[in-house]
């Protein structure tokens, strides 16, 4: 395959975001907008907004490119189609970073802060898994079987592996 080692971690992230967005597209609108569970970030809708908005920001930090309409933290919840478009675009953008960038390169953040590229990639992976888990927690707490989002599920979906939980 010839990818960089991090590629499948990032591809899994993009795949899982897409799978979760498509699952949420099929939810009852009231569940999507209002269901929550103690200890999580908020509603499903709010968590998806935050998750994809953050990935848009991480990607812009690393590439300088804003992919899709800016998902403002204090703005209205984006339509599912917009989330899907931004998630797919940032997924491709971040893959290019992993293929060509140096994890040790230091970049400027806001307010005079700096970070290595590697830490931002690790944060993107952590952040994605964290908030997808919060959404599956909300689904489970509301009696809805969540979609499979593990890397085993990614391996099966891409026919790279037949591994199971």
């Amino acid at each position, binding site marked *: *395959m010839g*990818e*960089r*080692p*991090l*590629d*499948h*971690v990032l591809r*899994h992230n993009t795949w*899982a975001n897409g799978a979760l967005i498509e699952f949420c597209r099929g939810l009852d609108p009231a569940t999507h907008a209002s269901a929550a*569970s*103690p*200890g*999580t970030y908020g509603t499903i809708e709010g968590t998806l907004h935050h998750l994809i908005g953050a990935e848009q920001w991480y990607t812009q930090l690393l590439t300088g490119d804003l992919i899709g309409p800016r998902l403002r933290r204090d703005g209205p919840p984006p339509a599912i189609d917009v989330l899907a478009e931004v998630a797919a675009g940032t997924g491709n953008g971040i893959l290019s970073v*992993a293929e060509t960038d140096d*994890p040790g390169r230091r970049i400027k*953040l806001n307010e005079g*802060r*700096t*970070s*290595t590229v*590697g*830490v931002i*990639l*690790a*944060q993107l*992976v*952590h*952040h994605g*898994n*964290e*908030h*997808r*888990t*919060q959404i*599956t*927690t*909300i*689904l*489970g*707490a*509301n009696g809805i079987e969540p979609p499979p989002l*593990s*890397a*085993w599920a*990614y*391996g099966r979906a891409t026919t*790279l*592996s*037949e*591994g*199971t939980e």
Partner: protein
Amino acid sequence: MSDLKVPIEYDNWATERLAQFCEALSPDQRALTTPGTMGTVEATVIHLVGAKERYAAALRGTPPPDDAVRETTTKDLGHVVARAKKLSEWFSGFAQGELELEKIIERRLADGTTQRVPMEILLTQHLHHGNEHRAQLGSIFGAHGIEPPHFSAFDWGRERGDLT
């Protein structure tokens, strides 16, 4: 050095930090849970480290050691902390080398059967699994008003001086 070293080192740090935090909780706090997660604090942290034992064993090609954390027998969270540290050392050394990502790894399941999976998928699952169950612990703590330790990759980066 593999570029997987960064998320692997982050996983080591975050898992150790959560295990230490859980060890310091009272028995009543360890028994807390919240709907939609896998179970109690104690069961989740034991599973988190127990699964890491099995990922390491599969990558080494040897069974987990006798003192490995196991969901069926481990009760002592002090031992979980100690094993998390040992596993961090192992994964750090592993990530330093050239990784044979397409190598097929044999993985032994609980029912005694064996699965063959590419190393790159096993490593992706390892990283996903750690983040997933640490997030569940964060939800349990939040649901019960317990301030969890900061364990994002940005927190890790700040502690290392990689993020200023």
